[in-house]
């Protein structure tokens, strides 16, 4: 029987070694993969290559959901000696009683549109379940109004084998030639609510796979898993509309999320395919609320996309690399929507994998000599993705596109805790001062 290890054991195992010992996956080697040719936009493969060096660790984290709820034992604090009555104060005689009260926000008058992804047999599709996004009447997790739908996580699959860090291969090696098997693993092992299939091989600078051949991969994924799927192109603005239109055709009736329509490509072609073949559209803009309004307006007015088929991606910047703009952009969008701006009342999606672009998430050590030690990077990466995603969850984001299984598990744990569906044994914190930590 295999010996079970804790993360701490692994840490200890590594503790005595030179950090370079983990360099079977040196970034030098990995980062200079053929990334320049991967097309525009964030490359989630880079995230994979950089981030998942420690997949074994991740599997331990996957158990995180069950980590609460055990009885907690703490040594009782020694009884405090009685306070000398001499200390009793003249100025503080009686405890005043008070009533705390605070009003709900009256300006939050408008509900965010509910947008379903995935059709079950009831709607003419073959998905085992539907994912529902949106429907909020307040900021996320606020007491003003119950939040109707929890956050959802979609995990990436790619349509070709590309260079991956060794530790990522430990996770995915046996499934990387089969997008279907890869998708299955994300659902069965890593608890993905959805799958995103990235058709990156269609980029003319990579394999220039035809739209027709790429569509076969979409069919394969739809066969392999019964969760709803998102379909991404390569990021090439010339080719993506054609690729997404063909993918939409072969997945007719499944209500997939087509990613993405943007102002710098033929968004009308993507919108048209979504309407014709029963899909949703991801409306992507770059940290610009007015551009987001413009694109949403064009999708609705020019292309006649119904409101319940639009999801927004207002762009995710990583912690330390512009998250302040991404956070505030989303928070402003959501507040404007709640107050009635009907060009913004849509659920939001985040490319949370962008967190792996932050050097803190993947570099062995700081490039700047004066920094305190950055510690082991295999633990830095997942938490960078978690904090990036969690911040945006609090700003109003609904759907998270993620990579690292640990990040997925922890993000789900905290968002579902704040959503109110996580049961845990109550913890007595009264004696935190004397607790053994």
């Amino acid at each position, binding site marked *: 029987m295999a010996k079970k290890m804790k*993360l*701490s054991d692994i*840490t200890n195992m590594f503790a005595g070694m030179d950090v370079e010992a983990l360099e079977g996956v040196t970034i*030098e080697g990995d*980062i*200079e993969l053929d*990334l320049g040719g991967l097309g*525009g*936009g964030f490359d989630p493969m880079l995230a994979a290559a950089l981030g998942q060096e420690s997949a074994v660790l991740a599997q331990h*984290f996957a158990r995180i959901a069950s980590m609460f709820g055990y*009885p*907690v034992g703490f040594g009782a*604090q020694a009884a*405090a*000696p009685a*306070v000398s009555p001499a*200390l009793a*104060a003249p*100025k*503080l005689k009686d405890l*005043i009683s*008070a*009533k*705390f009260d*605070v*009003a709900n926000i009256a300006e939050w008058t408008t509900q965010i549109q509910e947008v379903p992804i995935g059709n079950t047999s009831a709607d003419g599709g073959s998905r085992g379940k539907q994912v529902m996004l949106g429907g909020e009447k307040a900021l996320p*997790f606020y*007491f003003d109004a119950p939040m109707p739908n929890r956050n959802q996580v979609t995990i990436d699959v790619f349509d070709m084998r590309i260079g991956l860090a060794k530790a990522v291969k430990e996770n995915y090696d046996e499934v990387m030639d089969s997008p279907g098997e890869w998708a299955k693993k994300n659902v069965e092992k890593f608890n993905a609510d959805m799958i995103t299939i990235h058709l990156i091989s269609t980029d003319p600078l990579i394999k220039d796979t035809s739209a027709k051949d790429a569509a076969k991969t979409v069919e394969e994924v739809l066969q392999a898993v019964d969760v709803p799927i998102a379909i991404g192109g390569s990021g090439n603005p010339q080719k993506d509309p054609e690729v997404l239109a063909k993918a939409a055709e072969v997945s007719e009736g499944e209500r997939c999320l087509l990613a993405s329509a943007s102002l710098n490509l033929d968004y009308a072609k993507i919108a048209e395919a979504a309407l014709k073949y029963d899909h949703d559209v991801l409306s992507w803009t770059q*940290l610009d609320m007015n551009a987001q309004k413009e694109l949403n307006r064009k999708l609705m007015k020019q292309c006649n996309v119904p409101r319940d088929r639009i999801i927004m991606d207002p762009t995710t*910047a990583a912690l*330390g690399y512009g998250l*302040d703009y991404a*956070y*505030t952009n989303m*928070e*402003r969008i959501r507040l404007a929507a709640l107050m009635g701006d009907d060009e913004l009342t849509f659920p939001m999606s985040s490319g949370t994998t962008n967190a792996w672009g932050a050097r*803190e998430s993947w570099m062995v050590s700081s490039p700047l000599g004066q920094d*305190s030690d950055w*510690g*082991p990077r295999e633990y830095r990466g997942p*938490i960078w993705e*978690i*904090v990036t995603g*969690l*911040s945006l969850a609090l700003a109003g984001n609904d759907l998270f596109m993620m990579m690292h299984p640990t990040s997925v598990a922890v993000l789900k744990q*905290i968002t579902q*805790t*704040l959503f*109110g569906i*996580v*049961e*845990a044994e*109550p*913890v*007595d*914190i009264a004696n*935190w*001062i004397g*607790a053994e*930590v």
Partner: protein
Amino acid sequence: MKINSPLEAYKYLPQTNCGECGEPTCMAFASKLIDRSGKTSDCPPLVKEKKFAKKLAELDRLLAPEIRQVTIGVGERAANIGGDDVLYRHKLTFFNKTKMFFDVADNMEEAALVERVNKIADFKKFYVGRNLLLDGVAIRAASNDPAKFAAAVKKVAEAGLPMIFCSFNPAVLKAGLEVAKDKNPLLYAANKDNWKEVGELALEYKVPVVVSVFNDLDALKGLAKTFAEAGIKDIVLDPGTYPSGKGLKDTFTNFLKVRRAGIMGDTEIAYPIMALPLTAWMAGIADPVSASYWETVMASVFTIRYGDIMILHSMEPYSTLPEVHLAETIYTDPRTPVSVDGGMYKVGNPDKDSPVFFTTNFALTYYTVESDISANGIVCWLLAVDTDGIGVEAAVAGGQLTSAKVKDAFEKAGFDLKTDTNHKTLIIPGLAARLQGDLEDTLGANVKVGPMDSGRIPGWIEKNWPPKQ
């Protein structure tokens, strides 16, 4: 603050446009008061002349932030908390970044205690032109022994960081105060059992104090009100921080409610809020990495939603780095520009043989690249291409960074690779690699693809510079 237009503040100013504050007019100064970039004390006549005394007092009252500002510690590392006027950062900005205090226990071995305190004091993370730091030390009276606690306080005080004294036992707190009389520590905490004694200590030693009532906002407000009426001004609220399940959700709700009430004018509860992410370590998470992650997750939630000060345990870099970065993220002034001016910048004193790089004019990108280059002593030309303040990767994807834009930037800067350099070479960001061919055609120069991350420029230069012709 109670007013929101410069005109309203102007009414209380001398209206002489004397210019002593550095502004050309009193109206300009009034604008600075309203956006909180100036203080009434910057106006000498208002402060000095007796006839303005009443106006000054009234103006100060009107301008006071909704949430009381409390100072912990003394000297240059003193920590200010609270002082906020808004619920969302884009409405103005948040003031006084969430302060991160890390715990030590008074029953630790002295060597271990000193080592940990030094680690807290020495922590440094460089970030666009400044260092992110940890803020202070929370001393837990785990021994519940006044003498032991006093000894620990004495040791910790040597580091010069702000301190929180953690005990519900007034005798222990008093022992600590006696050995740190002028250090202005924060007392944690007064609760329903010890409030008289702890309140008296706060008055006697003139130190800020936490009032602590778990999950009962009526009682919390009552205790705060009791203290305020006894003349205690520097109050911090601890509504309790539960680490999991419904308890954590309740905690989140309490923070939202308290801050909303305070900003909306309930002065009796308009104080800074303390979060205790350290309780993550009481949630029964056996594995320390997972517990540490959970602590960081809790710290993140309460950095964003209204925690002004927190007590944390994990000093692992994978906890501290995201924590200090998130506090910086949320408290960065959103009114500062996203971008630097496009143009050619010199790093050191470059000449015709120095390498030429470009990046975008997104401020974070530019400063990151600039500090990576200069910190490693590389002398070069650095062109900031105007991409509407968007980073390299996103700008390539979004069409704001094209070969034409780069050419345009060179022309505007009056810099010609063919005549201003001997090598006629441009090094481009690895994330813009797909522009290489286009750029060679457009610029008629050699184009080399640099690393994906500017942190790797030094290694890249070593291998690839000067270019082989």
